[in-house]
């Protein structure tokens, strides 16, 4: 049975003298229909001038990413009843994506931001040498692994939600870096180290991500861009030991070492360890790092001021009571030959309880 909903749509017409504004529309829809269905109903019945990109209606083409109640999402796979509930009695707000210039109503300029960043990561396969006569022989799991980033539909929701991009417009960003992993993780690509070095050395590259999880939360296809960025980092640091000028390498190791030693983050140790590859007490080992450490002084001072770091904390940091258990986890992981990476296609939990589930479904033919 259709129910009534109210959409509050952000309007902007570059040809009008009116500035951007909100406009409310009522729609009648079955609760399981989508916010896109709502927008299209308004267009069909009331105002055909509302501009929105949309095509497949099924969450495949990636056209209709907008912000619904402030959250980036595909309008076509967001149920209108869910959106209404989240709006909490107020109209459902629908506005264009963030971090990209608005062209008209709900349409943003993806070329100027999203596609430019995609182009930045050399988004095509660069194999070594001539192609084989038949297919490249590659590990089945490796193909499934990169299929998670292949699942990206370039909708831009992660770009819209990215907090690092808000601060640094030049950040390569979640979608493009997920795309980069699609090549770095592809065993057929011959430029793995070059790609990683490029993205590690770029001050707006893989170490520009601030771990905020926004891209993972909004991605409609479970691509988990931040996970792909972390994989790029692991490949850069653990597999290729790329010591970048952004000190991403040092920072990554500092975190791990601190947790192994104390169990929780020892803030005062983080910066010296990140930049100097050594502890505060032992002092700096790399000459260039002194300058960089000095540049971080404002950060340290802010930490002191807010109480996050105190002189006392600098000198001593309590270990977790059961730090031995943390150490055991580290030992266990260090003893593995290979790093275990799970993703949406490789789900550890089910593989064990359903034996043979990985076998080809077509074996009988």
């Amino acid at each position: 049975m259709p129910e009534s909903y109210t959409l509050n749509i952000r309007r902007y017409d570059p040809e009008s003298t009116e500035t951007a504004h909100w406009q409310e529309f009522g729609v009648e829809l079955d609760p399981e229909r989508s916010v896109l269905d709502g927008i299209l109903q308004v267009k069909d019945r009331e105002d055909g001038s509302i501009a929105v990109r949309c095509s497949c209606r099924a969450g495949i083409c990636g056209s209709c990413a907008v912000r619904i109640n402030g959250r980036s999402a595909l309008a076509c796979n967001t149920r209108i009843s869910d959106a209404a509930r989240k709006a909490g009695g107020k109209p459902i707000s629908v506005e264009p994506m963030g971090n990209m210039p608005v062209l008209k109503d709900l349409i943003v300029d993806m070329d100027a931001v999203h596609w430019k960043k995609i182009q930045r990561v050399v988004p095509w396969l660069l194999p070594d040498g001539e192609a084989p006569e038949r297919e490249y022989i590659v590990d089945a799991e490796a193909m499934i692994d990169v299929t998670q980033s292949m699942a990206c539909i370039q909708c831009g929701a992660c770009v819209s939600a990215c907090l690092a991009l808000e601060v640094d417009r030049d950040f390569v960003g979640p979608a493009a870096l997920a795309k980069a992993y699609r090549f770095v993780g592809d065993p057929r690509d011959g430029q793995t180290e070059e790609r990683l070095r490029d993205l590690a050395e770029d001050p707006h590259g893989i170490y520009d991500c601030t771990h905020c999880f926004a891209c993972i939360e909004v991605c409609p296809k479970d691509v988990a861009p931040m996970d792909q960025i972390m994989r790029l980092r692991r490949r850069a640091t653990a597999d290729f030991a790329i010591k970048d000028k952004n000190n991403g390498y040092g920072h990554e190791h500092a975190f791990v070492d601190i947790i192994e030693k104390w169990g929780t983050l020892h803030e005062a140790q983080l910066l010296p360890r990140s930049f100097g590859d050594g502890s505060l007490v032992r002092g700096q080992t790399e000459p260039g790092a002194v300058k960089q450490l000095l540049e971080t002084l404002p950060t340290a001072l802010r930490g002191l001021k807010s109480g996050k770091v105190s002189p006392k904390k600098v000198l001593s940091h309590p270990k977790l009571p059961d730090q031995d258990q943390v150490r055991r986890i580290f030992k266990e992981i260090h003893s593995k030959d290979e790093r275990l990476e799970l993703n949406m296609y490789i789900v550890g939990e089910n593989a064990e309880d359903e034996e043979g589930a990985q076998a080809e479904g077509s074996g009988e033919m």
Partner: protein
Amino acid sequence: MPQHDVLVIGAGLAGQRAALAAAEGGASVGIISKVHPVRSHSNAAAGGINAALNVEDSWESHAYDTVKGSDYLGDQDAIEIMCREAPDEVLHLEHLGVTFHRDDEGRLGTRAFGGASAARTYYVADITGQALLHVLYEQLMKFDAIDRYEEWFTTALVRDESGRIAGAVTRNIRDGSFEVITAKAVILATGGNGQIFDPTTNALICTGDGIAMAYRAGAPLMDMEMVQYHPTTLAGIGLLITEGARGEGAQLYNAEGERFMEKYAPSKMELASRDVVSRAEQTEIDEGRGFPDGTVALDITKVPRARILQALREIVNVGRDFAGTDITREPIHIKPGNHYVMGGIRTDVNGETGVPGLYAAGECACLSVHGGNRLGANSLLDTLIFGRRAGAHAATEGRAMAMPKPAGSELGREQELIAGIISRDRSGRRVSEIKAELGKTMDADCSVFRDENRLRGALETVKRLQEEVETVSIDDRGSVFNQDVLGALELKFMLDNAECIVMGALERRESRGAQYRTDFPERNDEQWLKHINLTVNGGDIPDVSYSEVTLTQWEPEERKY
């Protein structure tokens, strides 16, 4: 005024493949699309791409399955080319970077698909079309020789003084400006026309633009009555549940819990060809053994959960987001729904339409490799093989000739037409009203089961809507992203398509493939083993003519699954 040796209209798989082949052939290439290329509807081809690549398999077997699937209306010379060239095309795509599923030895792995006598469908989870489309777009980004016109809407083809097609009139959607793009050859790769049906699995952009433009330019449309209803679509909104589900082992049940395909296709069961499965479902529903919502049940829980999550991920999302069903735990309600048009712009195996300078490839074209019914996982193949062939052929032809000069007044005419729609008063019907009436009419009277009476009624409706569209009213008066006015143009394209579909269905007085006439329930090879061609004649209805079906090595037989 931009000029290219080859101008491709449409940037789905056929268009992108054509553009890449033309560029590799040394041509300067322009590719136009009314949406960004990765938004194209090739995305939706979930299940995979067929190729007889295994040593135990053979192209002849693939070709025979395709011929039989087509209900012998497919042209066997074209089918042979497609099936012979399939393995190399799949390998080419693999080399470009498509992340095809591997077997335990790291080689390309396959899944089973409907109407096929071997498991020869290569796939990327259930995002095969998307993976192919995005990988080809990677190549477009790489190639400097290809100019991309993204979000440009093509309104008409233009000719030179000799009558040769010499380019197209196109409108930049971003600012409303017009451009005539001149070209030695134009390749239409604009996809299908599913939007004339409601519901449909097709995207909102699938409005048959290229089919209508070619028709208006004098190219014959062939076998337009052959419209595929896919067996597993969601009731109401019509979204697709991939045939890959049945390929992986999902089964169909009626409301009485009976696995009804036993009655209709005892040996292939759920994996009979699509026309057969759709008719079986519709019969069950019409005879009262469906669910109250006019559906039957697809039980995917027969497939192990881990396998579903790995290989059918997308339909897990579709079930959850659009039907509120966890397909790994419970059956999902489905019905036959509009999916694909086998008919289209008649072409030869190089994509030539017979109108000088005009090519077509992909769903908008009709060679015919699909005849009366397309096999699952043959559409991606069709787009790539014949997209490539059209691109290569057009590039070669173009090398020998000078850049033509558009002669006509098409630009002025199109600008006036659009300005007229924009400034028109709002007394006419809305685009959405006409579109809705068209969709409901076509789905009711020109779908799985057809008869003369209902088809005559549908034709009448279409003719009336064609008159109403001349005064259709829109709201948007602007130039920037005026989607409203484009909707009016698309609606006119759609009505041309609809008229030809109904005309073809009326004309073919037999049942073959997707065309089932309850008043002519048998296949009639003696009279109707032939293609129906429709050509515009300036009059009220198109001219009808016939052409032979090319048979090479397979004589028509009774079709059993």
